[in-house]
């Protein structure tokens, strides 16, 4: 297949206009020694039907997987709108006069994310929750007097890994990890109290990686008294449909993963990092942001703003290097939130919580209890050895995500997730086979 339109006559006209005899002469400025003489050893060309045949993918029959990437109901309107080429093929909206669609949708996304998190402002998106955490840490370190980062050990391990990668070059002497209570799965409040100080930026995930809802009021009390900066990490945005807005606890930043809002699991990506903060931090916030403005005739208009923080203006002094972000994923989130509405989002969140309780009940009947006693939203950790897990997978049942690699102290266990995409029958199928 070729997406070049020119026929022979048109090519000849182009060559004549340029004044060359053959197409290859366009490469005359590339030294001979650097030319690659042979055809590239890549596959193809293939017709569309062959591509359809060769590139087939199928999910397992029954899955209870989450851990920062979630399977949720996506209203049909989300795909219908997001597949409009006006949104999907457009570039970053540097030219606002012909990009109002993207810009207003981003502004609405920012408005809804700020509203849901209980914060004042939001950026236009980050790559994913993990890079949002890393960027929030860099943002904190740009603040006065902040010199170290502390994060709860029950924060998603991959996020902590990305954070460590980003901070490896800042001259930090490591990231302080706040342990969890092995009984409840909640943060060890005494350790928290002891390990933070005014030069610390603290990050706490809730619900945490074990699905356990953290005691936010107590954490907020300690953080506001002792930390110089603190943030709440959310890896399951749908929890915002039912849990108290994290902004109510007074953090400097609320960030994380909003893939749950209208973006499918997609084998791992694209995801949708979000970062919400207070107005006072606007000028050191990373990432793009859309603002309200007016056109020369005084009409409502939107444009990218605060660009003096950004790489294309500030270059090496920019607050972040981010350029292309996850625009279409943010659009999907905006359409999703509009389609779900306040009642729909709450109901979907309650279904997740109800499903987890239903499965926990079935497992409990068979003597399998969650490892942690803390209250959960829709994920929980159960003991399971590797053989059992592999056996289930072979039968098309994926019971959850194994934890031993990241948490050797917990032993053989899986993080099991239930959403409104699971059914009672699926839950029974898992419980009967564990």
């Amino acid at each position, binding site marked *: 297949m070729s997406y070049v339109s020119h026929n022979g006559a048109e090519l000849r006209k182009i060559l004549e206009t340029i004044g060359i005899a053959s197409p290859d002469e366009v490469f005359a400025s590339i030294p001979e020694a650097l030319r690659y003489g042979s055809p590239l050893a890549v596959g193809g060309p293939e017709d569309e039907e062959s591509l359809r045949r060769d590139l087939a993918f199928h999910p397992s029959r029954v899955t209870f997987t989450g851990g920062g990437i979630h399977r949720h109901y996506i209203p049909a309107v989300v795909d219908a709108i997001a597949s409009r080429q006006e949104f999907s093929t457009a570039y970053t909206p540097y030219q606002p006069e012909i990009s109002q669609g993207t810009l207003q949708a981003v502004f609405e996304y920012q408005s809804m994310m700020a509203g849901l998190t209980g914060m004042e402002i939001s950026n236009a998106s980050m790559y994913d929750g993990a890079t949002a955490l890393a960027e929030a840490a860099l943002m904190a370190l740009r603040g006065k007097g902040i010199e170290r980062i502390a994060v709860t050990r029950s924060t998603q391990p991959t996020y902590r890994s990305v954070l460590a990668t980003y901070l490896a070059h800042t001259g930090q002497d490591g990231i302080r990890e706040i342990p969890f209570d092995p009984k409840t799965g909640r943060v060890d409040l005494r350790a928290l109290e002891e390990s933070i100080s005014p030069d610390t930026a603290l990050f706490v995930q809730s619900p945490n990686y074990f699905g356990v809802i953290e005691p936010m009021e107590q954490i907020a009390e300690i953080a506001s008294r002792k930390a110089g900066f603190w943030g709440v990490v959310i890896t399951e945005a749908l929890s915002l449909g039912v849990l108290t807005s994290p902004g109510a606890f007074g953090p400097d930043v609320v960030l994380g993963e909003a893939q749950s809002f209208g973006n499918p699991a997609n084998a791992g990506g694209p995801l949708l990092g979000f970062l919400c903060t207070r107005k006072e931090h606007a000028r050191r916030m990373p990432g793009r942001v859309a603002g309200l403005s007016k056109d020369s005739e005084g009409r409502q208009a939107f444009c990218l703003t605060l660009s003096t923080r950004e790489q294309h203006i500030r270059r090496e002094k920019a607050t972040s290097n981010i350029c292309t972000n996850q*625009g279409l994923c943010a659009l999907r989130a905006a359409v999703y939130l509009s389609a779900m509405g306040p009642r729909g989002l709450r109901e979907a969140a309650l279904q997740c919580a109800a499903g987890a309780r239903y499965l926990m009940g079935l497992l409990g009947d068979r003597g399998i209890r969650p490892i942690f006693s803390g209250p959960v939203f829709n994920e929980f950790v159960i003991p399971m050895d590797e053989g059992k897990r592999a056996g289930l997978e072979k039968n098309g049942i994926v019971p959850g995500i194994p934890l031993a690699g990241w948490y050797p102290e917990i032993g053989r266990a899986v993080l099991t997730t239930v959403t409104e995409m699971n059914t009672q029958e699926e839950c029974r199928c898992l419980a009967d086979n564990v």
Partner: protein
Amino acid sequence: MSGGQRVTRFPEIPEPLLNVRSAPGRNKRMIPAPFDASVVEGLSEAGGPPSLPDVSEVDTVRHFTRLSRLNYGIDHGMYPLGSCTMKYNPKIAEEIAARLARIHPADAPAMGRVLKCLKTLEQMLQEICGMDACSLWPAAGAHGELTGMMVIRKAFDIRGEKRRTVLIPDTAHGTNPASCTIAGFVTKNIPSGPEGYLDASALGQHLNEDVAALMITNPNTLGIFEREIRVIADLLHANGSYLYMDGANLNAVMGVARPGDMGVDCMHVNLHKTFSTPHGGGGPGSGPVLVKKELARFLPAPFIVRDESGGFVLRARPSEESIGMVHSCLGNVSVCIKALTYILSLGPSGLREAATVACLNALYLKSRLKDLFDLPYATPTLHEFVLSDARQKGRGVTTMDMAKALMDFGFHPPTVYFPLVVAGALMIEPTETEPLEELDRFIAAMEEIAETSREDPEKLHESPRAAPISRVDEVWAARNLILTWSDERIQPGEKGI
């Protein structure tokens, strides 16, 4: 409507904000409810519904459809943004990638096939770039740069060398220095030569034992091939430094010349440019990093490897020498699958044809426009070229005026005021997928703009006239910083400010 306003072709303007359409009870969506939710107790202390607009499905569809009509996409017409490679995005790639939607990355049985495809893409990119190893995890070009520079940093750290300077030519993208800063380097801006490319003989004065790398874009943002790149690579290597290449402009040389053969040690490619995945109004993109053998062990975790049974799995934990993870999962997987589909669709001859025609189309435009506009560099160019407003400026017409005027002819403007080495730059990259009629239509538009700038320059200040809105006051936006609809300066029920 107040007097003096033009009759607009866009009844969508202004489209009220979504919250203005909201009224309690409008949303009647039925949510899947497999479980009995009445058992859930004590989760929410606040208890109230989340803060969202309450609108119907029809409201949602009409709202976003109207907004979409205010955008300009690649299926509308030419999008000649220099160094952005806005080429046609094949529909088949979207269809194939959508098949990933319901696969969770922890669904190991299903992921085997996905990983096999990702491994294939890694190998294809290695072949196209002449490099030895690849990581697909960076989610965008700048993320790739950052990852690549972290890899270079790690190579020095392991050796116990403390090199901190990265040389960056003045034609570079802004992300280059920004990425270096985050990776812990200090950047030094170096001037390109009078012909628009980096002069190897002038590079020596900048080389010393603190230089970690040179970050080069080839062809550069003037569209000029860095003809001395091999010598530059040798100089850097002799100095113990690395050569990093920003692959933003790879489309110009795909199948013709390979960065690896030019002496490049580390680079990124933009799948959303060269490999035709859509830009999505600002992402998701994908910025895979490619390195030579020596740097392979520093690439970000996880790694796609074969298990005992010959299937593909992830080695999840970072190896001792890896820089660690740069993304919580596997980057923008579905974007990678779109790129794979594109490469397979074109095949080796198609990739080379794409590069060739991308250059032909750019040279055709340049031949026809160079007598009307200032062409600051006479050096031969490949897939893009840079004009300036030097001839129009005398009459008060700027690059911004011309860019906005192009909208009235139904085009997206070129990249403007970049690269910084050209005052009032107009950087034009048509790509290979533009038909000849569209190129001719663009030339006609530029000719008319040149003529108007001579005869009625005032008129151009008022452009665009046919776009959905007139020029936006970006200074007002930055001064007032109204970033959400909850801002008290927005009056409820009113259309905007």
